[in-house]
């Protein structure tokens, strides 16, 4: 005794091979459910190519550990967003960032937010004057060395300037509220940031590693290097950035991890 291996016509009891729309023996139609049989996932989380965002550190109201499955084509995150809301984080613009698919790829786009979207760099990343980055709880901006304004007057009076040394660039700390904090001019080509014994030190920042990151100029280009810090170094994206599995993002105070199933 064996079980029939295919769909069996309900009119004439003949076996109908898969893919046929009509019974070959009696011409009766095969129901559409039977025609389009395919294996489904138990849950949407298993769907290939679909990503989710996990809130690693979040907004008090929304809680940590929450995950958002990115099933649609666009997913807006923000203080007043419907899809990925962070209502109690006033560092987020009402509509802050958009997670969208471009073909198979997930990208994040800054929706013109005030404070931007930060992505954790993997070891090293090129960086430009004017870029912002984060280490621990600290936010920084890279500035160019200002034009020298210490030349003599037309009447040949010399300007008395504090002693200074050649510096390729400088790093400015940005304080909550937008005021500039520490400014540190690089000693020649490189500047080190960390908790202690660096060029800029944050002894009371518990999220900062002792030697956290450094900015280096080689030739004409700047590079931001994470020195295997525990919590990573994040750089503000310009416009749009492709995401891959394991990326970390800061949106305001919220830290998100990107998971993309293969």
């Amino acid at each position, binding site marked *: 005794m064996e079980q029939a291996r295919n769909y069996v016509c309900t009119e004439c009891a003949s076996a109908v091979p898969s893919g046929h729309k009509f019974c070959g023996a009696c011409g009766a139609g095969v129901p559409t459910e039977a025609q389009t049989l395919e294996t489904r996932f138990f849950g949407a989380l298993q769907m290939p190519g679909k990503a989710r965002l996990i809130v690693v550190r979040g907004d008090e109201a929304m809680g940590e550990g929450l995950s958002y499955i990115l099933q649609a084509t666009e997913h807006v995150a923000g203080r007043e967003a419907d899809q990925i809301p962070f209502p109690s984080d006033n560092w987020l*613009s009402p509509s802050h960032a958009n997670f969208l698919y471009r073909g198979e790829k997930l990208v994040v786009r800054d929706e013109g937010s005030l*404070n931007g979207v930060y992505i954790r760099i993997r070891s090293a990343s090129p960086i430009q004057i004017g870029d912002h980055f984060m280490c621990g709880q600290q936010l920084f901006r890279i500035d160019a060395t*200002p034009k020298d304004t*210490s030349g003599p007057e037309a009447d040949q*009076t010399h300007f008395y300037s*504090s002693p200074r040394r050649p510096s390729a660039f400088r790093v400015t700390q940005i304080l909550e509220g937008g005021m*500039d904090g520490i400014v540190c001019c690089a000693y020649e080509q490189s500047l080190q940031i960390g908790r202690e014994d660096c060029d800029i030190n944050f002894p009371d920042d518990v999220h900062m590693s002792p030697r956290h990151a450094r900015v280096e100029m080689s030739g004409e280009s700047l590079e931001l290097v994470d020195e295997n810090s525990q919590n990573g170094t994040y750089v503000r994206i310009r416009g749009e950035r492709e995401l891959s599995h394991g990326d970390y993002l800061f949106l305001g105070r919220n830290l998100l991890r990107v998971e993309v199933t293969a």
Partner: protein
Amino acid sequence: MIVCSRCSKDNQDHYKFCLGCGAELPRESSKPRSFSAPTPPGGTPAPGRETNAPQGLQVQGSQAEALASAPQLELDPMPVEAARSKPVAVEDPLPPELAPLGDETSPCPHCGSQVPANFRFCHVCGDDLHAEAAAAPTGDAPAERVSPPAVAEAPQPAAGRARLVLIQPDGSEGESFPLSAGSSLIGRATGGIFANDAYLSPEHAEFRFEGDQLVVKDMESLNGVYIRIEPEVPVELFDGSIFRVGQEILRFEGPVAPDPADDGTQYMGSPHRGYLGRISLMIGRQTTGNSFPIPPHGIHLGRERGDVVFPEDGYVSGLHCRVNSEVGHVFLTDVGSSNGTFVRVSNESYVPQGTFVLIGQQLFRAEY
């Protein structure tokens, strides 16, 4: 780097004790620069602060060569670098309070114990020896001066004898510039002792008397007029106030923040610890270099101690001055530095008798 002879650990040059085993490190190698750093381009030891010597005799002659370099400044576009690269004479590697026990002792006025001369407090009864020393009248100083003897003998009221006495690189007194009873304009165009100072504007400052008080007015000069502040007397700082510590020109900047965005979003940033403002190093007319925010409990500035350090400026004392807040205002206080803390005059200021005034590259004492 100093290698400890006991445990072989490498220690930084300014350490006095080994980081690894606590052994005292050889002092010879721990004196990259003089502590007593007497005279930067302007500056003398604090009156009655670290020694009891009369004020006028305190200037120790060592690296005031920087001052002597004033004449050559005219030809030198980067005189600051020149002054810095000059080897700094090392006379006394330790400030008096840190110096090892000397042979000299004197009896404590309170309990009679023999106290080493460099102690500020009696090690037996804790009596403040320094208080006694400070109580000694420093106002007698003019009587001790010998140059020129005819003029300095007795204090005289205001005009006629009023003058600016040049304090020379070696600490001795140089030429004087007489101040008239009316007003005296000084600057590079005045000639004489001012002619060769490239840091003076042609018309730099004006001195005049208001009653028996001397007043200096900055004639919108490029580099300004600086007045030395008294140790331990707080002077209020306002947004844009400029002061000088060693060779460093610093500006106080009050807290400024951009207006918040219309949609209620706040600017993200590093934790704001209630900063009172910042101090910034001036490296150009309106250009600043490094800056440091001032937390509510204030900051100390020094060459090797404090929150903001200037390890390469030998004219800054180990611990030099403090910026802190009291009753909602921000104050600058010299904490007994050797070379003093100078505040740039905003428009005009009284100049009490005996005040040190820094004009261009030269230091003067106002006498009247």
